[in-house]
């Protein structure tokens, strides 16, 4: 009986200590959120600086303007703060788009050339915005290298690891759950923005079909596996839902964008 009382006291002491420590807001005291935010900002700048050093960034308004309009439309209709997103267009024929920490959104001209309709392009943009909104990049990095290594990267003391992490972000997939979440969020964004959500599914179907005999690099597809299953999941998700299908850009503006992108390498 005495032993049982002492054991109970020990248990109460443990939970009591926890309860007392629970009365403090450790997240604020230890500035956890602030450290995470600062680290993310520094990592975003570090990765983007490393990436742009080896790429041609396009700033021409004929290309950047219409893409900015598409991103702004998606953001406005979905209550996403547009100013947070840093849109970059890169002159590269690889079919790719990705998100870097701190909401850097990178789109390759190869992707713009590959998409056949505006809704396909908006679908891919929506997918990447969803990755940014859900903080998937930082989650992936935290899993792969951990917070302490990420902080050391921002201090410039893990250069090689930073390069490897950048390579991983730009050319490999998130796990299945995160990809699925980004797909379905993108479909939601599109429906709210009156853009046909089938566009993303169509793009995934087409890429899956073309994949076998496509010799060129389609990074966005190779980094986003099981595209057929994902396309089917999107179709199932939007089935029975009401949405409008309206173009964001005029037909002329969309064709002009495609033409400008085609001209870029000439």
């Amino acid at each position, binding site marked *: 009986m005495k032993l049982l009382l*002492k054991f109970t006291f020990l248990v109460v002491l443990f939970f009591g200590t926890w309860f007392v420590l629970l009365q403090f807001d450790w*997240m604020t005291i230890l500035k956890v959120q602030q450290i995470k935010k600062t680290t993310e900002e520094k990592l975003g700048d570090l990765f983007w600086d490393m990436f742009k050093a080896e790429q041609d960034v396009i700033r021409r308004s004929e290309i950047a303007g219409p893409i900015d309009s598409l991103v702004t439309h998606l953001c406005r209709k979905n209550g996403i703060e547009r100013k947070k997103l840093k849109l970059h267009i890169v002159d590269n024929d690889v079919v790719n788009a990705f998100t870097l920490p701190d909401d850097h959104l990178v789109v390759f001209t190869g992707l713009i050339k590959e998409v056949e309709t505006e809704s396909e392009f908006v679908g891919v943009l929506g997918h990447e915005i969803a990755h940014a909104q859900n903080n998937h990049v930082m*989650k992936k990095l935290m899993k792969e290298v951990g917070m302490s290594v990420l902080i050391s990267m921002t201090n410039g003391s893990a250069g090689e690891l930073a390069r490897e992490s950048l390579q991983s972000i730009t050319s490999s997939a998130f796990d299945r759950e995160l990809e699925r979440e980004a797909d379905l969020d993108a479909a939601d964004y599109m429906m709210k923005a009156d853009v046909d959500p089938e566009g993303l599914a169509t793009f995934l179907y087409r890429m899956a079909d073309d994949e076998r005999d496509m010799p060129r690099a389609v990074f966005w597809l190779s980094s986003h596996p099981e595209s057929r299953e994902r396309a089917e999941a999107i179709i199932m998700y939007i089935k029975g839902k009401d949405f409008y299908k309206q173009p964001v850009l005029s037909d002329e503006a969309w064709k002009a964008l495609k033409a400008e992108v085609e001209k870029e390498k000439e």
Partner: protein
Amino acid sequence: MDIFEGAVKPKSGFTYEPGENEAEKASNSYLMSLIAVMCGLPLPIVNLVATGFFYLGNRDGTHFVRWHCTQALISQLSLLFMNSAGFWWTIHIIFYDTEISSPYIAYMMTVLLFNFADFVATIYSAVQTRKGKHVSWWFYGELTNVLCPR
């Protein structure tokens, strides 16, 4: 954690001076436990396995040795539960969608405090038993008396 020290405690049945060899073995059980405490926070099962192996290796030893091996073992058992919860909470934060939160930080601080208390008590016990002195911990000593009768 309170520590009750006494060269001879009638209820524990130690009415003799342990020999050099016994004192060394009993002290080693705490040293093993000490290593377990250090490894056990990131990997809790180490707590139990290390002390468990030492206990099994010395179960045929003298009463003094067995008694201290048992006390070291059961003190690790309670750490195993609290460390395991902290371990899996951390795994969920690293690999799943769980966010770092104030309750998590408070829990890890509590676990650290208890591990530190155990660490200090273990070092003290290792030193004292090496001198041949008997050290009975609050609660754990009495539980050991029940589990390890003469």
